[in-house]
């Protein structure tokens, strides 16, 4: 049971980190070109 919870916590932590970094990178990249977009 504790192993299942550990796996769940790891899934949440790793995915939150990766997707979070990806989201911030994409947000900044898009913000950078907003003023030039047609």
């Amino acid at each position, binding site marked *: 049971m504790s192993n299942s919870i550990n796996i769940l916590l*790891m899934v949440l932590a790793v995915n939150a980190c990766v997707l979070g970094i990806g989201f911030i990178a994409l947000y900044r990249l898009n913000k950078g070109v907003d003023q030039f977009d047609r």
Partner: protein
Amino acid sequence: MHLIPQSWSHLHILVSVFPSVGLIFVLGFYLTGLATKNEVIKRSCLILFGVLGLLAIPTYFSGIGSMELLSQDPKISQSVLNAHYYWGLGALAILLITGGYALVELWRVGKPSDQALKIMLGLAGLTLILMIVVDELGWEINHHELQRVVTGAEAATATPQAWSHVHMMLNHFPTVGFVMALVFYVIALVANNDALKRASLVVFVILSIVGVPTYVTGAAAMWALTVPPIPGISKAVINAHRDMALWTLFGMGFTGVAAWIELWRYRYIGRFSSASLYLVLAFAIVTLGIMAETGHRGGQINHPEIRVPTDVLPTDPTAGISPALELLINNVIWFVPWQTVHFFGFTLIFATVLIVVLRVLGFWKSVPFSAVHRLLPIGVVAVVMNVFTGMLMLLADTYRYVVNDYTFAPKIAFIPIGATAILYFSLSDRLWRLKAGEDAPAFAKAVAILVLVSWAGVIACGRLLPYL
């Protein structure tokens, strides 16, 4: 210092790849120069054709030196050596003529005529065809494992040597390609030529994409060389090579993504950012350094003739980053989180691909193409996520993937096809100008179908891995 060869064989291995693989890159830039009618690109290519022509001289003499050494080895076939020598002689002669003609045209006329440019194209193409034959014969000289036939009980567990052959073909593209792309990139920065900057950035992106099948075929080649074992091949030496290959994969990722972002941003801003261009340059130089070490360690696996007494080769097959990662990722607590990231990655890739492809195919014509172009970075971020997580999952059980799973090879083949085709959507001027209500050209629609089939293939083949 690995870049200073200490024998004729070592010099021959280092220098001979430039007139063959390097020629492909110069030809590619040359075709770009002809298509865009860009004088800087055309003239740079003529200079580089000349330089490659001059490299025929050290290639010839180092080849003669190597032959003298290798002909004393009873394992080396004299007839293969001779075939490589005579075909090589022909190829180098045509290369010298190509290089000489390029330099004469460059200095005699100043601005070469169209006819001269076409003659150059023909000569370079002919040299390339001859070089391919020479390269194949060159590999036959001491890569005897490629002809190895495994019989009996060992046949069921042996990895096909085709993986090693493909790895040898692919691994020269990132290494030589980075050198050539860097040369053109530096010329572009010095000459401040946007077309050449763009072309060089595209090559960096393509080379980074090629890095994926190069790494994967390398992992497969490891098994082809070790199960069943081949005398003289050390797993520890292979591990040292693949540890550096891992760093190379990261270096190529940084260079490729930075180059692609600059190409994507150029669409909106209309000019390149100097800071970003120099960042790409820095990434490319560092990656080339790592790649040189990777190549050197790769050469030490199966080229005893380049080893020198001062070389200290690793002996512990369990040492290094790759074996440690293999142990770690086989633990479910690490495998499942990264596999979940992989699943998020391919949903994001497929979503991005589907939206862009459907617009090109005629869905949502009220939307201009530039609107869906804004979504492409999501797909690129997802590709990066999946290359990293895919590499981790591969390390969990490389042998099973490459030997037992029939859908692994097509999956890996679909990745560069799908990624390169997406590059077309990022770069096409015609698509970028596609306004709301307008239909995309037929060629773009064909690419769109190719992209859709490729990425659907990647997902389907991936899902079938445990079953076929």
